[in-house]
Structure formats: C-alpha cells, structure tokens
C-alpha cells in the first residue's frame, strides 16, 4: 500500500472540508470571527465543486487506503448536500443557558461549532472512500468525536449534560465493539486492505472455512452492534429518545441523519466484502465464492433481518407512546433504521452473485434493476431529506410564548417547542412551516407520491424479489423476506398513527399562543430547501433512483457478473 500524491487528489473534497475547518478555528481564535457558519457553507460548496471533478462512476480508482467508486461518490454527494442543509440548520440552532431566562442569552453558532461540524462531514465522507480498515475506523471516529463536542457545546443545562454524557459513553462502547470486529476481519484476511480481505474471504480455500466458523460470527456480531448504535437500531437504540430530548433541535437533526448515513455506509462496505463488489475483481475471480463468503453472507442477512424486524416494530410501538416531539422523532428514527436494515438484509441475501439471481444466461435472470443496496441508499436519501426537514422546521420555529393575559402581570419567558401540543394551531400562526412539516411527516409515513413512498416501494419490491423462484416454505429464505416485507408495510401503517397526531395538532387544534420563529432565516431556508428537494423527488424520482442505483450496483455484485438492468420498451 503506497500513498502518493494521487491519493490526496482523490480525497480533495475531504481535505477541503478539513482546511475549511482549520480556517474557521483559527479565524474564531485570532480574527475575532463571530459566526463560523458562512465559512462552513463556503467550505462545503468548495468541496462540492471539487468532487465534481473526480473520476466518473465507470470504474474504481484505488490509491493507497482510498478507493473511489460509484458508491463513494454517491455517499460523498449525499454527505455534502445533507451537510449543507444541516449547516444552515445548525447556524440557527439556539439554546437557553440554565441561568438566563429572559431569552437574551440566545447564542448564535460560534466558530468552534462550525469547525467541528466540518470535521464531522469530512470523517463521514472518508468512511465512504475508505478501502482500508484503519482509514475506515479513523473516519468513523472522526464522525463520533465532533459529535460529542457538538452535543456538549450546545446545551449546558442538566438534561443537555445527561444527553451528551450518555451519548459519549455508549458511543465509546460501540466504537470498541466495532474495533473488535475489524480486528477479527484482519485475522481472517491477513491484511488491513478491504480488497485483500474480500479476496481472501471469497477464495475457495477450505482451511478458511474452519477459521471462519469461529471468527465470522464474532466479527459480524460486533460489527452489527457497532453499526446498530450509529443507526439507533435494536439492541443499541435506547439512548436515542433521551439524547434527542436532551439536546437542541439542530443537534437532533444532526444525530438523526449523519450517524445513520455512517452506519449504513459501513454496513454496505462490509457487505461488499462478501459479494466482492466494489473491489474491481475480474470476472473469473469474481464468479467464484468460497464457503467462507457464503457463510458470511448468510449470517449477514440473518442478523440484519432479525434486527430489522425488531427495530422497526420496537421503534414504532415506542413512538406511539411519546408526547415529547423530539422523543417521538427519535423513536421514528429508530423505526426508520429498521426499514433501512430491511434493505441491508435484502442486499446481503440477494444482491450477491451467490444467490444466482443476477447470473446471466439462466431463465431467472430477470430483475427489476434495483438491488437491495440501491434500495437502501435511495431510502436513506429520502429519509434524511424528510428528517432534516422536520428538524430544520423545528429549529426555525424555536420558541413560543406561553399563554398569558395582560392582567396577570409580566409576560412569562418563552418556552422551547418541546411537546406535540406545543405545535397546536401552527397552521394558523405559521402556515408555511406547518405545511412543510406536514409534507415531511407524510413522506416519512410513506404516503404516495412523496419520496418516502418511492423508498418503501423499492424496499418492498426488492425484499419480495429474494429467492423469487423458490417456494415460500416455512423457514426458507423467501418466507423470511416475505414476512419482512409484510412487517414493513404493517409498520408503515402503524407509523402513520403518530405522524398524523402531529399533523392533527397543527391543523385540527387551535391555540392562543404565538410562535416566536426565532430560529433565524438560515434554518427557514434549510426547511424550504428540503421542501423543494422533496417536491422534486416526488414528481421526478428518476434522478435519485438512477444515482442510488449506480452507487448500489457497486456493492451489489462483482463487476464481472453484473447484469445490466433491462430497459423495458412498450
């Protein structure tokens, strides 16, 4: 493994983010820069510009620990667009100190926050391009550590401290578990290079099988646990409601999107070890899959399927019971982690060449053209769009006045919007915000034709496709995925109940309390950007489908056996 100048050129966008972060830090310390967010947005824009110049999706460019392919490009764009939106949200994120109740202590985003946020984005993008265990882990830690800082910076009352400490310790545990998984993978592969591990895992070496029976379950179990924390999936989900409630809306926006992207990206990268996708294997090499790889993929989909079923059900049932808005959205984000894991399980079960479904020349070579990993990425994009939108709107709304009468004396201090009831009558006081929140929530609920519907459609259709030609006998893989698809749609219906409760509060109830809308113009702008993107994807989902299909195809199958999806002409 050699690191050359080319390596640095390949990760120019990430480097730009880090440089921007350093500029913000230094300017805050020495140039008396008040708010770092304009610089942060500029840095993200530069990174976007630079990533436009990287190689196209035609193949994989590997240099040192870095590998650029369709997948990492897709992830990078997702991270940058989402990062831009979240930067706007974060800049409007306000909080009240524990001492001041007058509202004068509202503090706008400082340089430290903007800088750490940029580092977080750089780390997440690095996870996407990592072709090496060390860089993968470094990227993940570069996501985690800024998150701790942001959590601790934003809120200094008791609940905020509880939230940041809780997140800190649990995240450390998750990182340790994940590191252990990486060690096991190193033990199997004898190298830190993902490509070499994949080649070794897929080699038809019988001696490997014995070792794999011990190491693979440990590695996968640990990796899943580590990723489950970032996804807020069962069994590592319980922190989410407390942390979201304790922190600011802007931080909740961050927590409910960026770590989830990290978790899904890591899971798909690890999944590619088994399929041999993403590592530019030649046809002959790719067509062979040893017993270890088969065991790996089987275990992968089984674990992911169990976690998916549990996560979406637990998340939705918990959400039904919530009255606090951020707790409710935390539970909703748990449920969505479950939906995403359905896609991951589908990808592990069916996207690999192991299942034979994608092998050309057989009578089973039909496909809807969308694999599980593409469906997962598409769903991820629609989910982060809608969730970031909701939190952007909540940040924008900020506080509202409590009910009071002029005769009662001085006006009581403003209260943060925290419960569902605090949104009562929002359609009257702030129709634009109410309308966009309603749209985001309906999209999360999967009501057609909003993007969430297209996402659930692709998840359901790919899950139904698994082992299509075998019969759904009890205990078969097809029966499992049939059950998962049914569980998915039933959960979607359950979820509608609590989304509708928020919409009903905004539209069907009235209030005398005014909304402050003190989150600033930037958060409002972020909300409108999310709404605009939402509407574009609603009516023209082709672009996002094509992009996620390009990115997912890299994971799905080794280059050699990839079947071009059939374009149907009428």
């Amino acid at each position, binding site marked *: 493994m050699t690191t050359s100048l080319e390596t640095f050129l390949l990760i120019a966008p990430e480097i730009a983010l880090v440089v921007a972060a350093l500029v913000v830090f230094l300017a805050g310390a020495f140039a008396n820069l008040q708010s770092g967010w304009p610089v942060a947005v500029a840095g993200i824009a530069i990174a976007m510009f630079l990533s436009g110049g990287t190689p196209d999706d035609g193949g994989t460019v590997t240099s040192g620990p870095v590998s650029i392919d369709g997948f990492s490009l897709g992830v990078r764009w997702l991270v940058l667009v989402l990062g831009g939106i979240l930067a706007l949200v974060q800049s409007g994120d306000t909080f009240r100190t524990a001492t001041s109740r007058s509202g004068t202590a509202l503090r706008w985003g400082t340089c430290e926050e903007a800088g750490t946020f940029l580092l977080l984005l750089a780390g997440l993008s690095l996870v996407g391009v990592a072709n090496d265990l060390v860089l993968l882990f470094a990227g993940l830690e570069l996501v985690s550590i800024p998150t701790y800082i942001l959590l601790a910076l934003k809120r200094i009352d008791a609940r905020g401290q509880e939230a940041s400490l809780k997140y800190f310790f649990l995240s450390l545990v998750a990182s340790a578990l994940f590191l252990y998984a990486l060690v096991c993978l190193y033990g199997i592969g004898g190298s830190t290079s993902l490509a070499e591990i994949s080649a070794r895992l897929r080699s038809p070496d019988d001696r490997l099988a014995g070792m794999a029976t011990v190491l693979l379950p440990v590695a996968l179990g640990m990796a899943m646990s580590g990723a489950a924390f970032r996804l807020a999936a069962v069994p590592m989900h319980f922190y989410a409601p407390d942390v979201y409630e304790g922190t600011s809306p802007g931080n909740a926006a961050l927590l409910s999107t960026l770590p989830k992207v990290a978790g899904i990206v890591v899971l798909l990268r690890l999944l590619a070890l088994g399929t041999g996708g993403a590592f530019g294997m030649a046809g002959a090499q790719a067509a062979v899959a040893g017993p270890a790889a088969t065991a790996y993929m089987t275990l992968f989909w089984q674990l992911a399927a169990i976690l998916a079923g549990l996560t979406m059900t637990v998340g939705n049932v918990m959400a039904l019971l919530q009255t606090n808005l951020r707790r409710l959205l935390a539970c909703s984000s748990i449920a969505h982690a479950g939906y995403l894991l359905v896609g991951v399980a589908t990808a592990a079960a069916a996207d690999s060449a192991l299942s034979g479904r994608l092998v050309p020349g057989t009578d089973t070579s039909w496909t809807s053209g969308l694999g599980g990993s593409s469906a997962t990425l598409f769903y991820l994009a629609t989910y982060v769009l809608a969730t970031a939108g909701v939190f952007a709107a909540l940040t924008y709304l900020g506080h509202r006045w409590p009910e009071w009468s002029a005769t009662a004396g001085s006006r009581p201090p403003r209260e943060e919007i925290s419960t569902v009831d605090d949104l009562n009558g929002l359609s009257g006081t702030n129709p634009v915000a109410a309308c966009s929140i309603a749209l985001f929530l309906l999209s999360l609920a999967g009501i*057609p034709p909003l993007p969430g519907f297209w996402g659930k459609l692709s998840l359901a259709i790919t899950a*139904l496709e698994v082992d299509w030609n075998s019969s759904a006998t009890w205990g078969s893989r097809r029966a499992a995925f049939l059950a998962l698809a049914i569980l998915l*749609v039933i959960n979607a*219906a359950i979820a509608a109940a609590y989304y*509708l409760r928020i919409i009903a509060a905004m539209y069907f109830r009235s209030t005398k309390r005014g909304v402050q809308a003190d989150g600033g113009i930037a958060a409002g702008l972020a909300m409108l950007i999310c709404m605009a993107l939402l509407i574009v994807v609603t009516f023209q989902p082709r672009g996002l*489908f094509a992009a996620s299909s390009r990115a997912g195809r890299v994971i799905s199958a080794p280059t050699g056996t990839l079947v*071009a999806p059939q374009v*149907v002409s009428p």
Partner: protein
Amino acid sequence: MNLLSPGTHLLLTIALPLIGAVVLWLLGSRGVQAVRQSATVTAVLTLVSAAWLILRYLGSTAAAAGAPYAVVEAPWLVDGLFDVRLSLGLDGLSLWLFGLSALLSLTAVLVSWEAIQEKPVGFYVLLLLLEAAMLGVFAARDVILFYVFFEFTLVPLFFLIGIWGHDERRKAAVKFFLYTLAGSVLAFLGLLTIVLWNASHTGKVTFDIAALTAGMAAHPLPMNAEGGWLQMLVFLALFAGFAIKVPIVPFHTWLPLAHVEAPTGGSVDLAGVLLKIGIYGFLRFSLPMLPDATAVAAPWIFGLGVVGILYGALVALVQTDLKRLIAYSSVSHMGYCVMGLFALEPVAVEGATLQLINHGLSAAGLFALVGMIYERFHTRSIANLGGIAARAPWLTVLFMLFTFSSIGLPGLNGFVGEFMILAGSFQRAWSGVAPVWQTAYMVMAVSAVVGVVLGAWYMLWAVERVFFGGSREPPRGAGHAHDHSAAAHGAGGTHDAGGHDGHASHGHGAPQVAADLDLHWYETAALVPLAVFVLWIGLMPDTFLKPSAGAVRAAARPSADAFAARMESLTVPLPGNPATDTLTARVVPLP
C-alpha cells in the same frame, strides 16, 4: 374535434381541478364569495369537460370495440429501473365512475356554499384536490399511478373531516385514515407480487394494468400447495385493501364515524365516490387477475355481502341520528354491490356496477339533504325533527325521490340495479352452483330480498318522522312562531359547536320562514342534476348499461369461468346419468 385529442382532453379534465385549486388559492384574499364562486366555476368546467369526454367516448370506435379510450402515456420512472408510467385512459369499467366523480364534486362544492364560512380557501382547495384524485384513480392504467391516486384520496379527506367536521372530527379523521391505510398497504404488497410474478415470466417489469391482466391470464399465480397458495395470499392482501374501502362488514367500523363527523361536502364525496373505489378495485384487479382464488373466496364474500345488507339495515333501523342512519344504509347498499359482484353472474355483475352509480347518486343526494336539514334546524336527531314537508316542500320532494331511489322503487335507478343483482344472484343460486352450495346460496339470496324490505322500512320510517306530522324543531331564530318547542331548540343549539353558524341570515322575519327554509338556488343546482340521473337511469338503464357491459363482462369472465369449473369439480355426476349437461340436472342427494 382534432383541436383536442382525447388523451389531452382526459389530461385536461384531471388537471382542471388542480388549476382551479391554484387559482382559488391566489384569490383567497378576496373573501368567501370569490372563493366559492371560483370553486363552483372550476367544478362546472370539470364536469362539462368530463361529460364532453364521455360523449366523445360513446361516439368513438373504442366504445364499440371495448378498447381503452383517450390513452395518454408518459414515462415516469423508466430508466432501467421500474417501468412506471403516467398512463391514463378510460374504458367501460371506469367510464361512469369517472363521470360520477365529476358530477358529485360539483354537488360537494355547492352544498358547502353556506355551510363553510371558516377557512373557505383551504376547504375548497382540498375539495378540488380530492376531485382530481378521484378522477385520477378511475383513469389510471398503471398500478403505481392507481395506488398513488388511491392513497392520495385519503389526504384531502383527512383534512376535510379533521378541520371542518363536527364534534368528534379529530378521532374520525384519524380512524378513517389509519383504517384505510392499514388495508391498502397490504393491497399494495399484493399488487407488487402480481407485478413480480408477471415479470418473472415475461422478463419485463411492467406496471401496466392491461399487460398484467394479460400476463395473469397466461401465467396464473399458483393456487396449490407447491406454489404456496400464492394466488390466495395475493387475493387476501387485495381483499384487505378493497374490503375496508367498500366497506364490507365486518370491516366497516370506520365508516359511520367518518360520515357522521364529516362536513356535508366530504360526506357527499365519501359516500358517492370513495366507497366505489373498493368495488372498482375488485373488478379491476381481483376478478380478472386472480380468478382461481376468487372462485374459492366468492361464496364467502357473497355471504359477507348479504350479512352486510342485513346488518346495515338492522343497525339503521335503530338509529336516532338521521345522518348515521344514512351512513348505515350505505353499508347495507354496498352489501348489494358486493353480493352482485361475487355472484359472478354476468347480469349480477353488471347490476353491481350500475348500482355503484345508483348508490353514488342517492347516497350523495341524501347526505347533501341531511346537511341542508342540519343547517336549517341545527339538529340531525330524528326525534327532534318533524313536519318539514309543510315548510320546505321542494326539499321534501327531493328527499323522497332519493329515498325511493335508495329503496328501489320501480321506475327509479335503484330498482334497476337491485333487480339485476337479485336476479343474477337467484340465477346463480338456482342453476350455477354445485348442489352442496345450493341451499346456502338460496338462503343468502332470499335474505338479500329481506334486506330490501328492511331498507324500505327504515327509510320510510325516518321520512315519516322527519318530514310529516307536527313540527317539533323550529328553524333557528324563528322561535316566536313555535314557542312551545323553544326548549328543544335550545337542546339542538348545543350542536353548533362545530362552527357552522352560517345561518344568522335566516330568521328574524317569521313570515318568510317557509320561503327561507326551502331550497336555495345553489342547493337546487346541487341536487337537480342528481335527480335527473336518478330518473334517467331508472327509465332508460340501457343507455348506461350498454357502454360498460362489454368491459364489465370481460373483467368478470375469468373468475366466472373459474367458478363454474370449481362448481363442476364439486358436482358428483350421478351414476347412470352421464348425459346431463346442466348443473341443475345433476341433483345429488346431500350426504
């Protein structure tokens, strides 16, 4: 004629309400008068456009050939992924329901004229969105597009009920939405399975309904243990969606609540059109695509239809609230449609499709009239109403007309539909089922006739109480003439909480009470078109039956054939009598 190609014409008809909604929204600041006028203009234009399109269809060669008309297609999501298309068109199955949607939307707008004073812009925008969704669901030729419109009808109605409904509106809105959604997500999975099955046999992932119908005929879903009874599973999934929408008893519990709490305009659309989507779904998907499963399930669903007829009628008998009574009568009448459809006898299936239109007209009319009565007297309690006939004769005449239509008086539309359904059902019971089923079918068909009697009973009982006899409830503000019932008025006044105070203008002038109480011009305009069609269908049903007969029969044929084959297999030929060629000739003694 070439100025406007049929496809563009169809697209324009569906787009008109959307354009109107935007215009309305822009006009919002001009006050309620401007808003409701432009909503009316939009609804009239849409109706004219739809009617013209239907006339063009009837005059076209497509009508004679039974082919889809006015087909427009545009790719939506083709790029090598799914072949989802924006594909619209009309055929015999959807023709009249399409027209009904346009007609009832105008009614819904007009009956809201005075009733909606609060946030009128939102109300009419949602009403027009609902109209576009209803027109779209019947015109969709692509599974995904159908599902999009199918679900999208929920959203405007959710807000219509939740914002402008009565006391329990929030609960009703949420229950309506969740109940329907829970069923339809399962139906969606079923539809996806059909698509995938077709794809795995033809190699093409297509969502085109016509192609899927053909594909299912060529490669039916397996209906045996080796295939995992997949066809039955898919049928049950679709059943979950459509049965809740119809609703078939016991999946009806959302309906009375939603109807009673909905504003009148919402009730009109809900009863008139949205319930029909369930039956339409069965006819569009289940019957042609899943014939073997339909054949197995048909006797049971036929029975559920009869249970619905009787249950709905019996519950309607004990109602004290007029609107609730009509809501339960809807349950009962939709039972006839279910029964007719699953009799799988051509006459009955045609009758069921006609009955959809009939019920759409009569239920929409009745709900509209109940809304008008509520506006005048601020109560819907049958016990508190009385003697309206003397004070509002035209209102009474129309109410009687729709009542008679609903109970199937010969000469009106309801009679034709019910007669065809019952005739077909008896035909099925008499000669179309295996002997083991014959007694059960006979009992069910006879019970359905009992339902007709019950229907007449509760409707006429209610009409007698509400319209004749002494007046029990004075009009609002006209209490001087009826001092003896001031207390009752006070009690009724508590119902006003829903915010329907649009009638301050009525009253104060006791002498003009009678004139004030009868129909206003906009109410007449809302109801007379419905009355015209009630008579027209009743007197000349062929005009309406002929254009759709071919398509309806074709849609039901696969299932009817499968049912006949199943009955054949259940029939044990008598030893020594092999020459029998009709089922009736082979009477086998029951074991």
